[in-house]
């Protein structure tokens, strides 16, 4: 047996987990439709507010209209990708003690949960991203709001870098969600920590307002933190706010953060396993 097919064999259970979870999560179509409408509405408010600010700018603004439109609509499209909530089933396993069964499986627990979490992040994102991008690109001009439509990528290279960057975004977001999952092994209810992430993630990823619009003196802080890899980096690659020349460095940073946070997750899970007491019942 060749080396390649043996590693393929080893990956098979994880691939099956991803596929099964995606199929399950794609069931909730009605909720997705409602969420879609909500996000369109939210996007419209954001566009109106940001453009109103831009119009009243006295100094040259750090972003132009089309870069802001890209940022807002891609942000609405990829909202589900943000690592701000946990997989209710994994949380349930931890609370109910079902994690004991998870430990019995002949699989690496981190890789097993990572695969599940990857599907948990990817499926709802995919479900919302496609209609949102189509709507923002074709739909808005149809209802007479062409001036607010999603512009095409600034350049072919920018578009390509955006797509590659999205893959890293998914991995990075999954790695951060994994830290949230592992943290549940300590706090049981985990509600407090998760709620804190509800505040941290949207601000530092750029979902509340585009990161370049924060004051200049905050920019170095915003540059050296992992959350911008979830939204800010891919959006600015798309809009050309980050030039394709700088793109490779940005991709490397995304990959670096993913690896770092992945290692953190593995380490935390190791510590947690050693001190884990499964309650009976």
């Amino acid at each position, binding site marked *: 047996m060749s080396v390649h097919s043996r590693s393929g064999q080893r990956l098979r259970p994880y691939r099956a987990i991803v596929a099964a979870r995606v199929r399950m999560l794609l069931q909730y179509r009605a909720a997705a439709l*409602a969420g879609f*409408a909500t996000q369109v509405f939210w996007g419209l408010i954001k566009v109106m507010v940001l453009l*109103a600010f831009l119009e009243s700018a006295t100094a040259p603004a750090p972003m132009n209209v089309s870069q802001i439109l890209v940022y807002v609509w891609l942000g609405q499209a990829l909202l589900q990708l943000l690592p701000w909530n946990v997989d209710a089933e994994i949380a349930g396993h931890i609370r109910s003690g079902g994690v004991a069964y998870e430990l019995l499986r002949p699989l690496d627990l981190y890789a097993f949960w990572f695969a599940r979490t990857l599907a948990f992040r990817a499926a709802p994102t995919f479900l919302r991203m496609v209609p949102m991008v189509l709507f923002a690109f074709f739909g808005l001009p149809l209802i007479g709001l062409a001036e607010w439509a999603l512009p095409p990528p600034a350049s072919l290279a920018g578009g390509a870098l955006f797509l590659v960057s999205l893959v890293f975004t998914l991995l990075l977001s999954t790695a951060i969600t994994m830290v949230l999952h592992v943290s549940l092994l300590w706090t049981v209810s985990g509600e407090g920590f998760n709620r804190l992430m509800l505040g941290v993630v949207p601000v530092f990823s750029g979902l509340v307002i585009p990161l370049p619009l924060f004051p200049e003196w905050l920019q170095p802080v915003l540059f050296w933190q992992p959350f911008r890899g979830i939204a800010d980096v891919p959006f600015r690659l798309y809009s050309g706010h980050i030039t394709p020349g700088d793109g490779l460095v940005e991709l490397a940073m995304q990959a670096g953060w993913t690896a770092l946070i992945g290692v953190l997750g593995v380490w935390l899970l190791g510590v947690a396993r050693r001190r884990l007491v499964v309650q009976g019942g």
Partner: protein
Amino acid sequence: MAEVADAFTLYLRMIAQSVRAQLQYRVSFLLMAFGTFVASGVEAIGIWALFERFGQLGEWRLAQVAFLYGLVNAAFATCEALGRGFDVFGREFVRTGAFDRLLLRPRSTVLQLAGHELQLHRIGRLLQGLLVLGWAIWVLDIDWQAWRVALLIAAFLSAVAFFYALFMIQATLAFWTTESLELMNTLTYGGTETAQYPLAIYRPWFRRFFTYVVPLGCISYLPAIAIFGIDDPLGTGRAFQIAAPLAGFVFLALAFGFWRFGVRRYTSTGS
């Protein structure tokens, strides 16, 4: 009259019981309240950063927007705490059939749902909103005559009534949809987001919708203009601005009527 007083006593008892239950887990409550405080503060950070970057929003200053933001968020948090029963109605009462049990009890369904659960951790968002509002009032240098104080209180109560009405409409729609209609989130959560900024910055069609169809503008923007003592760039008169908070209560009355209509149409899911 005695009946109303009796209902109110019962309501206070239900609320007190819910509060006592939540205070059994004190650390959990404090963590949740703190988390709510932080999570609801992100929009405030965004507004601050935008003003830091652009200086002003048309003719609007940071303190004026902060005033609107604080007012709306404090009101919405109050409503989220008080209106929980209606908020979760579709999911927890219609789909499960638990509403049948409420109908069997010799009390009004509205009273039972209003007293369903008072979510104490919403106080995090309430405090956050009040802090921002307090700062805005401090900075704005408003001439606090009695009518302005009264108008501020009226605007707050009107905003609570307005959001409560939205929750009731969402709950009533659940009689037909058997699910909590997530679409209403555009009006509740989206409404708070919208009302954080002066109505004047939005497009005319958007403004008209949020003044005449869903009277969001009447609960914060219009009374705020009168409190600031400035002229409305949209050209409304002072009397209209002062009377505007009435719309919140009228909206609640309409929602109440819709609710009673819905209850008469209710058929149980049987589960």
